[in-house]
């Protein structure tokens, strides 16, 4: 024994790590030694590292609210895509927020022999459920013979009748293919009972989530505990994703060399949005939303910049019922109208197939042992948790008489959560019994499994020592059908669940994220483990030294980029928000400098108030410093307002709000972006959190935070410049940046150069504007002495060599437009742009600057000139949006007629 402080839990549970007499179980020695060697406090530090790495990678989970995920997402999508207010990030505030993913650095360890038994059980179960699925949507022999109770299938919400095969031989009916769709992927939740037996708690067949999280967990654990990871002979997860990729390609219904596979997501508000996007990028397939696809001629197509591209395989992460507003759930905005018809015609393969969710059905559990004998001719290897289906009178009476010992679980997810009978008071118990009695076939009772425990670092910090606590876990496993058999991921996702009802890991609890663990399957033999399915994955030397899971697979000829309008739109706004945030951060820094130099001189007509008002105007954070009622801000007000303009995420136009908009846009195109983006975004968020905490800051922290945010934004610029493929998405991102920069420069000039001021003040204001526009160095190099207004305008507007000037942005946009597919000289974008360029060249800035000053001290010609330019840039932005970013319309249901007689006296009266 080591000096590791770990006590297995009480005797009525099985402990994964230790036998009751205190000896270690197979596989655990290395982990226990490794953890035992840690210095005091190190485990707590590792937990902190884990949290930070997860944050850097933007790993989140959105805990479900009370209403269904799909409904919530539908609403969000509607709000998101109603193009009226792109700036309205506020819509997200009413929605459940993404929360940080939770990972325990201590893995859940299983040795290969034990795992082998699990794997055999899982493969058999997948085969069995696949056979059941084929039957219930096809010949229905099991139902006809009574092997399966009719109500358990027909009474389940996910039994989708439009997918049931019709009478054979009917001309034009292509139904046979519907029933024949095999179960592609299954996830199972397993628990180990007190006797050490593995038991299936639930089957996930709708659109199983978690494989992406499992890979993410593996990557993080391997980074925080590199030595342990390297020395453990553990099976890699990569081969599973490799198999999945191949299986998806092979699922294509037509014989094409390079099938188009897409991952269909409900969108960024989905619970497992991270998992979906991460999986998509791991597999190298584009992540699309329902409205990115359309059905024509009975086939599914992906909208692209200038063409439609046929889709062969859809990895579906939208629940089937929501996948087609025509034949499935009317009013869904997450699906593709006509998808069911395309599936019926066999032109596209949807996996998991529409209707597979009927197997996610605890009512089937009591029948499985017999079905296994009937269908596979062998006994069921891995038992399900003991289950009584209330649709059968004898089982119903068992459930009602043993309610205190059981978990009552609805057979459909839409019917609410499981409840533990012993938790109920008399009134709620009565209410539950009434609910069961009204629709008995919709419920099961299940025994409460005393789940096994395993060491966890979850509470290590609070214990203050390097001790571990015993916590119970549910294991989620994954299997993929490939080449007529199932391959199981050698590992998976464990979820710490201390309280029943535990079904539905991970994170099935409202309002919080559950702690997860990486599952390590360890080989006994010396040398690296060979994958049972594909043989040794990497040469021993590589797998031992590289020690990491493989990155994304190489991309096929399609590449990773998806040019659907939604993606282009997100990238365009990614560019705009990034630039907007950057320009405002620069301006705040420049203003802060003037505040220091003038010793916070807040005389109403002094340079500082002019610049403060420019902050409000350019960021549109009204009323801010232009509040007419305000006599003049105090020093404290000023600092408070500047902090708010940087930090207040609820304030439209603030730096924080623009960063939030940027993050939101990035989440929509996660599969398109480099992982570095998340690291940078997380860093910016951390520095804003630090400033929020420093409430008594006199300006130093504000400057420091603005600088950090600025350097984060510059890093983003670097990433997009250096790491992104030049494709339409990139061109639009860059156009977005160019448009925004031109707008910001013009706004800045308009609020700093138009009003006549005393010469010294004017100099100070112009200098600050040049600093904010990052052109002061160039300006000083070219012009000595006093700052001339016309020279400032020349450099910031017309100088095509200055990357901060308006002219430079226009040339940049022109180059990008030319590179986009479908470029034509006559497009409105090009015409507006050429007008702008001609206008710039044809104006004498000296004259404009020398124009008359009105009674308010305003140079009216200059004001009109700058205002006019800004408006034209606005027209250019509109033209770009119209040409490239127009989102397809949302589906609406046709009106339906009530079946009734037409009103008329002759009819209504004759009978009565």
């Amino acid at each position, binding site marked *: 024994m080591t000096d590791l402080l770990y006590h297995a839990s009480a005797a009525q549970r099985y402990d994964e790590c230790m036998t009751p007499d205190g000896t270690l179980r197979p596989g655990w020695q290395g982990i226990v030694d490794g953890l035992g060697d840690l210095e005091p406090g190190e485990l707590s530090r590792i937990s902190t590292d884990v949290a930070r790495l997860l944050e850097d990678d933007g790993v989140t989970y959105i805990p479900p609210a009370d209403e269904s995920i799909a409904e919530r997402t539908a609403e969000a999508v509607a709000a998101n895509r109603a193009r009226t207010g792109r700036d309205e990030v506020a819509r997200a505030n009413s929605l459940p927020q993404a929360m940080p993913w939770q990972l325990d650095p201590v893995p859940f360890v299983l040795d290969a022999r034990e795992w082998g038994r699990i794997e055999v059980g899982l493969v058999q179960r997948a085969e069995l459920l696949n056979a059941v699925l084929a039957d219930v949507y096809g010949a229905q022999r099991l*139902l*006809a013979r*009574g092997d399966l109770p*009719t*109500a358990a299938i*027909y*009474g389940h919400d996910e039994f989708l*009748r*439009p997918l*049931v095969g*019709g*009478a*054979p*031989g*009917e001309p*034009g*009916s*292509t*139904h046979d293919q519907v029933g024949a769709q095999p179960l592609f992927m299954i996830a199972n939740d397993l628990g180990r009972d007190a006797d050490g037996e593995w038991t299936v708690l639930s089957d996930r067949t709708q659109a199983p989530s978690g494989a992406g999280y499992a890979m993410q967990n593996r990557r993080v654990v391997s980074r925080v505990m590199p030595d342990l990871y390297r020395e453990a002979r553990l099976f890699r997860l990569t081969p599973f994703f490799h198999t999945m990729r191949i299986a998806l390609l092979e699922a294509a219904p037509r014989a094409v060399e390079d099938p188009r596979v897409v991952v269909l997501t409900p969108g960024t508000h989905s619970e497992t949005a991270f998992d979906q996007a991460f999986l998509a990028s791991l597999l190298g397939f584009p992540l699309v939303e329902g409205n990115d696809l359309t*059905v*024509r*001629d*009975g086939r599914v197509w992906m909208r692209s910049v200038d063409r439609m591209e046929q889709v062969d395989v859809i990895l579906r992460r939208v629940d089937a019922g929501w996948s087609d*507003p*025509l*034949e499935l759930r*009317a009013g869904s905005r997450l699906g593709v*109208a*006509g998808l069911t*018809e395309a599936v*019926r*015609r066999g032109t596209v393969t949807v996996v998991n197939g529409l209707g597979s969710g009927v197997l996610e059905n605890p009512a089937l559990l009591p029948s499985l042992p017999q079905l296994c004998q009937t269908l596979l001719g062998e006994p069921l290897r891995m038992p399900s948790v003991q289950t009584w289906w209330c649709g059968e009178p004898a089982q119903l009476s068992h459930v009602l008489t043993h309610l205190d010992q059981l978990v009552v679980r609805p057979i459909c997810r839409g019917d609410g959560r499981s409840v533990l009978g012993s938790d109920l008071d008399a009134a709620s118990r009565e209410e539950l019994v009434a609910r069961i009695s*009204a*629709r008995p*076939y919709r419920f099961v009772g299940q025994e409460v499994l005393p789940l096994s425990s395993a060491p966890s670092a979850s509470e290590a910090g609070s214990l203050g020592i390097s001790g571990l606590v015993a916590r119970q876990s549910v294991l989620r496993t994954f299997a993929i059908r490939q080449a007529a058999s199932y391959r199981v991921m050698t590992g998976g996702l464990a979820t710490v669940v201390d309280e029943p009802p535990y079904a539905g890991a991970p994170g099935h609890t409202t309002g919080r994220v559950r702690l997860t663990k990486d599952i390590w399957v360890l080989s006994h033999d010396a040398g690296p483990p060979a994958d049972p399915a594909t043989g040794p994955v990497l040469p021993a030397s590589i797998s031992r030294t590289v020690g990491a899971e493989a990155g994304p697979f190489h991309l096929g000829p399609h590449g990773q980029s998806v040019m659907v309008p939604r993606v282009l739109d997100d990238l365009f706004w990614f560019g705009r928000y990034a630039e907007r945030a950057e320009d405002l951060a620069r301006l705040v820094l420049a203003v802060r400098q003037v505040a220091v130099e003038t010793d916070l001189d807040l005389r109403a007509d002094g340079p500082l108030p002019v610049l403060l008002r420019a902050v409000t105007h350019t960021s549109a954070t009204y009323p801010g410093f232009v509040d007419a009622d305000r006599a003049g801000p105090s020093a404290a007000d000023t600092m408070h307002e500047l902090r708010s303009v940087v930090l207040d995420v609820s304030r439209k136009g603030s730096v924080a709000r623009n960063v939030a908009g940027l993050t939101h846009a990035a989440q929509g195109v996660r599969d398109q972006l480099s992982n570095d983006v998340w690291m940078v975004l997380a860093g910016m968020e951390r520095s804003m959190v630090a400033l929020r905490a420093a409430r008594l800051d006199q300006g130093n922290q504000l400057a420091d935070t603005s600088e950090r945010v600025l350097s984060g934004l510059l890093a983003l610029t670097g990433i997009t410049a250096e790491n992104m493929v030049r494709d339409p998405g990139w061109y639009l991102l860059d156009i977005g940046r160019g448009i925004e920069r031109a707008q910001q420069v013009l706004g800045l000039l308009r609020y700093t150069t138009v009003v006549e001021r005393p010469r010294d003040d004017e100099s100070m204001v112009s200098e600050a504007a040049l600093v904010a526009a990052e052109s002061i160095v160039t300006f000083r190099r070219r012009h000595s002495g006093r700052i001339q207004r016309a020279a400032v305008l020349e450099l910031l507007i017309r100088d095509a060599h200055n990357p901060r000037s308006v002219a430079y942005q226009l040339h940049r946009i022109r180059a990008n437009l030319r590179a986009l597919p479908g470029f034509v000289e006559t497009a409105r974008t090009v015409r507006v742009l050429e007008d702008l360029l001609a206008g710039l060249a044809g104006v004498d800035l000296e004259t404009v600057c020398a124009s008359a000053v009105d009674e308010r001290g305003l140079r009216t010609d200059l004001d009109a000139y700058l205002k006019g330019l800004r408006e034209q840039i606005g027209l250019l932005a509109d033209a770009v949006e119209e040409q490239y970013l127009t989102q*397809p*319309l*949302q*589906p*609406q*249901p*046709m*009106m*339906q*007629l*009530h*079946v*009734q*007689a*037409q*009103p008329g006296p*002759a*009819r*209504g009266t*004759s*009978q*009565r």
Partner: protein
Amino acid sequence: MTRFALRHVTTYAYAKAVTASYGTHYLHPRELDWQHCAATSVTISPEPADLSHHLDAYGNTKTFFQVTEPHTELVITAATELEVRIPPMITTTVPWERARPSERTDRPEAWRAVEFTLESPLIDVSEPVRAYARASFPAGRPAVETLTHLMTRIHTDFEYRSGSTTVTTRVAEVLARRQGVCQDFAQLMVACLRSMGLAGRYVSGYLATRPPPGGPRLVGADASHAWVSCWLPADDPADTDGLDDRGAPATGRWLHLDPTNNRLIDESHATLAWGRDYGDVTPVRGVIYTTSSSSSLDVAVDMVSLD
């Protein structure tokens, strides 16, 4: 036998152009022992770019169509020539309890009827429904008598009032307000049957204008109509509806009852399609893509006797 010429025109009109319509319709009448479709045509205007038919899970002909031409009006015209006879009566003396399909494992096809004993998306089986139904279901009453008793009660207790309900009105509301139209009465009766463990089916169809000789003019004439069918085990297991929904030999029969008119269906009832409720057999439904926020729907049904 009666022969009918049936014309069913559905017209959608939109304030602004619809760029694409996807639709499904159930406008092809079923072939039945007592009903034959001599000729049928459904035309859609503008002409769909894509159109296909298939049999659905209940053996109805379902049509998928897609219109890709921008339009402000969509017209679907079904023209059918139909021969209808009075459906043969079912000989059964069983009490209603023995008509519960879940308890008739002796009848090899009874399991298929079990689906129709369950709730469906538009038909909840609530306690008030069960309480209302109970009066027609004393223990041991012969099944056919029980069904007609329930039908007559609904006919008597409920007021036919056009416009009193909408397509989304639930059974509970109809029950509470004691008024509705044929769709509501059909769904209410189905709910009552299900509350007692019997299999109730919703049937979509038409009712002929011409009154039978000497009979009264019927409500629901010249409009889409709806009624109910209920599964019964015939005394003679060989007495069947022929083939069942999916083409397999059937056992037992479905008795068709029209609660709106308090009678079993006859040769003036033309059957289109059946399912669990209105949602399964909506004559025309679809999805449109448009910026138009207003639309109107007009349906005209014309059923003329050819004899």
